[in-house]
């Protein structure tokens, strides 16, 4: 009896181990199937969605597969927060995906593993000439085209129309009469006093969104040749001081930059006059019904500026289906497909010839964001495209800004400290 029990136990353990190894082996097969080459190829495409763009992409893939019966695109949908880890695991494990949707935050880290698209898409110049020049530093690295732009983003100003109307405050109607920051602050005060807004302005708690003010003051984070920090120059310090003033004057609640309160929720509550965010919030706020809202031009300091960004498609070296991946990227980059993708996802197209898309919602809002992008300091994309350096100091920048607002340090001291962190990151990157 005891012996039988032992035999059964041993058998069970072996069955369990066999099942485990089969489970692992099945994954391997799925991976190698795509890499097998031959006539039929399968392209693994790592994807994340913020809104409905995943569904739009599935439609595009279906069309592509119908036109190219030998190609199957396998969309691997993951959460955005898992993107970097998932790609690292796949690449270091020797099985990079054919393609991945990637944001400006990751593009630098993976640029060394990206396929240079220029040889597949008829030359770098011809390819890049199709897209807005301001985002070029993101996807052209060392003269290599490491990714293709899919959509472009711009920081901008969303306002509560109901509260502004109640206070009798008119927003700028054309790019020629944009507010100065002082004028805007006065307008916010009026909306708070007469419109009943509890807070004037909420501003996303990210260094990226804060930097909008830096560029409007004519500043930059890093010198254009990329050798040293410039954030602690006069323009940088002025931008920080004004940002502090917005808090101390009561135009902005401290809960966002101190307490991590979600500005989207505050704006949605209908008690906030304006939200400095980005064009992606248009689709997020689409369902607001308790008040009217709109997009207006951002105020200017010494100049107007937004911060360009976007999402890209990157193909990877070593996927063994490089040619087919590059062909698909080229298909995605065509005017027809790119316009369809952006129009249906409520995004902005990076193509120069698709600036005015026929959106089902907020067409005039996108025109304002587009205008913001056209009036953007060149330093913005130069700074934020240095993604092997920026992540190493962006958290320091954020925390140093909080210290200034809290009155623990002066704007100059905080920016000097940030400049040290930037210089260290530049030095580390050169090693």
């Amino acid at each position, binding site marked *: 009896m005891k*012996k039988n*029990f*032992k035999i059964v*136990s*041993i058998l069970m*353990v072996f069955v*369990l*181990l066999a099942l485990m190894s089969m489970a692992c082996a099945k994954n391997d097969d799925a991976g190698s199937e795509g890499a097998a080459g031959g006539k039929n190829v399968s392209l693994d495409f790592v994807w994340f969605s913020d809104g409905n763009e995943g569904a739009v992409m599935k439609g595009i893939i279906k069309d592509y597969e119908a036109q190219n019966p030998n190609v199957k695109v396998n969309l691997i949908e993951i959460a955005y927060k898992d993107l*970097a*880890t998932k790609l*690292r695991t796949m*690449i*270091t494990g020797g099985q990079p995906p054919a393609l991945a949707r990637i944001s400006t935050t990751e593009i630098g*880290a*993976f640029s*060394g*593993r990206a396929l240079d698209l220029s040889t597949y898409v008829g030359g770098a110049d011809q390819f890049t000439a199709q897209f807005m020049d301001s985002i070029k530093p993101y996807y052209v690295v060392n003269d290599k085209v490491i990714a293709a732009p899919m959509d472009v983003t711009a920081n901008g100003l969303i306002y509560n129309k109901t509260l502004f109307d109640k206070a009798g405050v008119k927003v700028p109607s054309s790019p020629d009469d944009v507010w100065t920051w002082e004028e805007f602050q006065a307008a916010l005060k009026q909306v708070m006093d007469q419109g009943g807004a509890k807070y004037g302005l909420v501003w996303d708690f990210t260094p990226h969104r804060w930097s909008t003010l830096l560029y409007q003051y004519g500043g930059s984070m890093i010198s254009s040749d990329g050798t040293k920090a410039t954030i602690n120059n006069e323009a940088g310090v002025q931008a920080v001081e004004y940002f502090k003033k917005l808090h101390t004057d009561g135009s902005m*609640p*401290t*809960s966002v*930059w*101190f*307490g*991590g*309160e979600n500005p989207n929720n*505050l704006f949605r*509550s209908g008690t906030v006059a304006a939200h400095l965010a980005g064009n992606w919030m248009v689709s997020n706020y689409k369902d607001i019904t308790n008040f009217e809202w709109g997009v207006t031009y951002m105020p200017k300091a010494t100049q107007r500026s937004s911060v360009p960004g976007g999402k890209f498609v990157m193909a990877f070296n070593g996927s063994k289906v490089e040619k087919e991946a590059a062909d698909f990227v080229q298909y995605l980059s065509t005017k027809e497909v790119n316009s369809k993708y952006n129009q249906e996802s409520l995004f902005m197209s990076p193509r120069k010839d698709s600036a005015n898309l026929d959106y089902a919602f907020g067409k005039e809002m996108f025109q304002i964001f587009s205008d913001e992008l056209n009036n953007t300091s060149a330093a913005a994309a130069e700074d934020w495209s240095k993604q092997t350096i920026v*992540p*190493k100091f*962006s*958290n320091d920048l954020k*925390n140093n800004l*909080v*210290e200034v607002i*809290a009155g*623990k340090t002066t704007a100059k001291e905080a920016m000097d400290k940030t400049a040290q962190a930037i210089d260290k990151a530049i030095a580390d990157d050169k*090693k």
Partner: protein
Amino acid sequence: MATGTATMKPGKRKKKFQLTPYLFVLPNFLIFSIFIIVPTIMGFIYSFNEYDGLNPMEFIGIENYMNVFTNEMFWSALGKTALYAAIVVPLIYCLSLAVAMLLIQEIRLKGFFRAIFYWPTMISFIIVGLTWKWIFGDLGILNYILSLFGADTIPFLSSPFYANLSVIIATVWSRLGFFMVIFMAGLQAIPGDYYEAAHLDGASKLRSFWSITLPLLKPTSFLVIMISLIDAFKSYPLMFALTGGGPGRETTFIVQYIYEVGFMRQELGVASAMSVVLFVIISLFTILQFRLAKGGAV
């Protein structure tokens, strides 16, 4: 095999090699090795290399450790963690002991009260953090209630003092039940005769507590203090959800800082060196517990 067993001396029978138990342990052992031991060893290796998780590692000796020991932010985060532990551990100890002593009495709805204290331990730290964020947020429930009474709102999450207080309250709330159960087991193991004898000798309740309950709870106390201390040093998800480490860096404790260095700055080598330092600190606590509790005889 059966013959072998028959010829063995009775005293040696226990030492006979039995394969089956090992096989039963094998799946768990494999999972533990693959997902805990191997990554620990890998982390140790990373700590001597420059590594961003993507490009090839480069051996740099003890440079990462030098970097850690001269890193002001690391020590500041560690100091904050130690202060947090110094407040949270005694609070958890006293409150869970007090609640356990109350709830081993024969009172009405005892089971219900025990459940109320225990339920929070079953909720993940992220949910605990989010729940308290709804309560403590500047536009949260607590401030709404304060405003109903015409009182000024309190910046629970945007003032350094209140943010730390909020984190402490949420931690104690979520861990109290777990340690209450441990204390209850300890308290119930104390024979009732001792209290009876003390009562007959005219000892007060306080005297009985100091002279009977506390000394006999010593092994349980060590266990509770050590587990809650290690918990405190490893805490991260709750703060991540409740304060995000803010305002500024006020509630950024050591694990969050290591996470930031490793995954936001992509400096896995330095982050691994920091983890090794934390591992040594936690190991010291564990060794101390074993020493004090005489080999873990709890």
